[in-house]
């Protein structure tokens, strides 16, 4: 099975010491060792984006990332997207809930995290920029139009919050 390595992963602000084998992916460790099953695996080969998590703020396909690569890095999964202090949902979560930005819900965590990274770097994306940024995230339920609306609405909400 290969040698086990001890890695420290900071996930949603909590440090976890985990023993992993060299070949274990971040997706497997999050889901099976840390019980963070909000990260969904659809294709398991980097084609669908559903397993996207943020590593040091950047969207990463956790099924194509080795857990050992994430030693000492900050990982954000969908479980950590709401405000850790208040529990208040992230604006993206709020708009996805309010406007039904999901159907089956498999792509939702990956969409939310990819969209968060977009809004963190571009507060007022145009529709085309949202579509382009999310183009590596498949939604088999075909909810693309609604998801774009939710991301744009969240951008508006975040800008409003900044203004106030």
């Amino acid at each position, binding site marked *: 099975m290969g040698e086990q390595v001890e890695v420290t992963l900071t996930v949603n602000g909590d440090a976890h010491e985990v023993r992993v084998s060299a070949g274990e992916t971040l997706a497997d460790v999050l889901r099976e060792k840390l019980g963070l099953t909000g990260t969904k695996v659809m294709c398991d080969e980097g084609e669908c984006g559903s397993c996207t998590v943020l590593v040091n703020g950047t969207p990463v396909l956790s099924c194509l990332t080795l857990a050992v690569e994430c030693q000492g890095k900050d990982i954000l999964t969908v479980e950590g997207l709401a405000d850790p202090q208040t529990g208040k949902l992230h604006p993206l979560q709020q708009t996805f809930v309010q406007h039904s930005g*999901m159907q089956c819900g498999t792509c939702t965590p990956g969409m939310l995290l990819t969209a968060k990274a977009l809004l963190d770097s571009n507060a007022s994306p145009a529709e085309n920029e949202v579509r382009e940024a999310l183009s590596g995230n498949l939604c088999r339920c075909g909810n693309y139009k609604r998801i774009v609306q939710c991301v744009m609405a969240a951008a508006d909400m975040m800008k409003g919050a900044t203004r106030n």
Partner: protein
Amino acid sequence: MSRFEWVGKSVPRKDALEKATGKAQFVADMQLPGMLHARFLRSPHAHARIVAIDTSKAEKLPGVKAVLTYRNVPKVHPRRKLEYLLNETVHCAGDEVAAVAAVSRQIADEALRLIDVKYEVLPAVFDAEEAMQPGAPLVYPEYGTNMFHGSEGQPVLRFRPDGWLPVEVGDVEKGFAEADHVVEGTYETPRQYPCSPIPRSVICQWTGDKLTCWADTQLATFTWQDIAACLGVPQSSVRLIATYPVGGYGAKEPDKTATLTALLAKKADRPVKAVFTREEDAVATHHRPKYKAYEKIGVKKDGTITAIQHRMIANFGKDCTWSARILACSACYSCGMLYRTENSRFEGCMAITNTEQHGPMIGFGDPEAGFCVERLIDEAAERIGMDPVQFRLKNCLRYGYRATTSTGVMGRMVPGVKPTTTIEWGVAGTDADALQVCIQKAAEKAGWKAKWRGWKTPVAVNGYRRRGIGIALGIHSSGYFPHAAYVKMNQDGSATVMSSAAEMGQGVATAMAEVVAEVLGVHYDDVSVLLADTAATPAGFGTVASSGTSSAITAARHAANNARQTLFEIAGRRLGVKPEDLEARNRRIYVREKPETGISVAEACLLGHQVTGTAVNPPETTIVDEKTGKVIYPCSLVASIAEVEVDTETGQLDVLQLVSAHDCGRVINPTLIENQIDLSLTAGNGYVRSEKLIVDKSTGVVINPNLLDYKVLTFLDMPRGNDMHEILVEAPCAWGPFGAKGMSEAGATSQAPALANAVYNAIGVRIRGDHLTPERILEALGK
């Protein structure tokens, strides 16, 4: 004030918060203490007999707890299919040969490599028409033919002895003789992989002789009953829970996987989890069947259809859990009802082949048939030089036209009643007139009048780029099946509704809560929905055939009515009025004429100690049209218009605009309906534009069972938000709750032909084959 408090409102989904916070647990996410992992050994051959199988090395591998082969599992037919749970003869590449449960997936995989199998490779056949030839290899020699005609477990009464399923009305030959023009065409449709976002997953745990099974199934009742039947135990010994069978699209039906996992768990005496890999899901669940259709239509110059004839051949694959129902659906809806003519003939057959079994996928027979029929209709309109919108308006289904269901087409078996083999035609209800409204609204929104410049004239030509527009209609069942529901009132006035419907993402839990809240006069948030747990929820057909609203929620509405009746009796006694004088709204029960006199719903619940409502849907034969006295058979309808641009040098197809107008009966939740429409449009586009499942012609092996090469459309492949128009047309139907109907799948029927007809308008060449990929378009252009 609106008549309704909840119906018609886009309230947030019941599961939205769970899904947006990562807390929604799918079966694949669950872990039980001591849980083992199952893996399956699959046949590399499309047709082979297992001459010898040695599992001893695998069994000795540390960590392996159970191994199953055909020799130590019950010899039963899962879901009453042709095959057994595990077979001595495998019938397609990917068929299960053995199952292993081990402490980890890695050890289970290692065990599979240690199983020694000797196969005698048998001749195989993959193409439907080849399978129908005399002398073709028989997939099941014991069945005697490759023409599927039902089985003991799944009888289809109306198959002819030659294996064809006929539906004939009037005199087709006479109709063709009366026609000014007869148009014929041979069309093909593709095989499609449902590609649920989460591959098949099942967990089984035994406690003594009681089994709990968590399964991603749309058909909780059927899967549960089948597990019990295969294991030979009472249904009360099996509890099946299907909380989130995510992304159904017809794919979620674990048939034998659930039973095999239960057997592994029994043998190992530990919980066992089976989760398919993406590749397994692509080759070992089921596919939408490929059709070949020989079509013929007679038309008069004025646009009257004098006769229509369909001869459809479907590739059955190695098996199906649904007997011939998909073919029967094609016969009933797209071929039997969508267009009116006195003379109509359908003949369909299903050829058994050594390919993966076929099964349901969004539209269930209608996208397959509709893709053929709607291309033929377009050709007929062109032959008489009539605008294709006008031709459809003139001939499309209307109120009072003959109607039936797939069950009618197959022949009815009711326990204790003599089987019916003649089709008892009913009628389409007044709601069918919504189709004309759909056509008009879609044409208006798409700017048809301005863009349609006549046959053989593209919308625009810009160098090698040509723009075209096309229309197609779609139809599907709005499934009205036996379904039951319980409404359990709590003493604080809140309610829990229980149903065997499954929440796959379509939003059935949300719409059900809206309807129940409406009936009981309570708040949407007061209603909890418990779905698909056979220990608690009552029997029901499952969530298939666009039946969630029209069957499951109908039952929930009746159950809520039943509970409300009890509440009104209690309140009536308290208030000294008759129950029929009461109304419920805003969590109060009050006298209609004296609204200030009333009690809270909570008080009535408390007084009643335990108020419950139960209901089973009234039989479909009780829903009768007043004017004709005939049974109204349900359907849902759609008109779609596509505008496309074709690069005539590369064959590249860009979809510029999609307009789709849907007959919804009554809208319960507009946002959920729009989302379901977008699903049907996207899946319908993928069906012909990009999703190409390739079965190797010489080996029968699927060569692209992955999302790299099985291409699901992305954000950038569907039109932008302003260029996708979902139009909701309301015409209350006779069977659904408040006139609402199941509408989710019809949209997948009209997409492929709307695109094909638009491509024709752009390039002037008809594509009668299965795909509209760049390569096929260029081929059609003769370049």
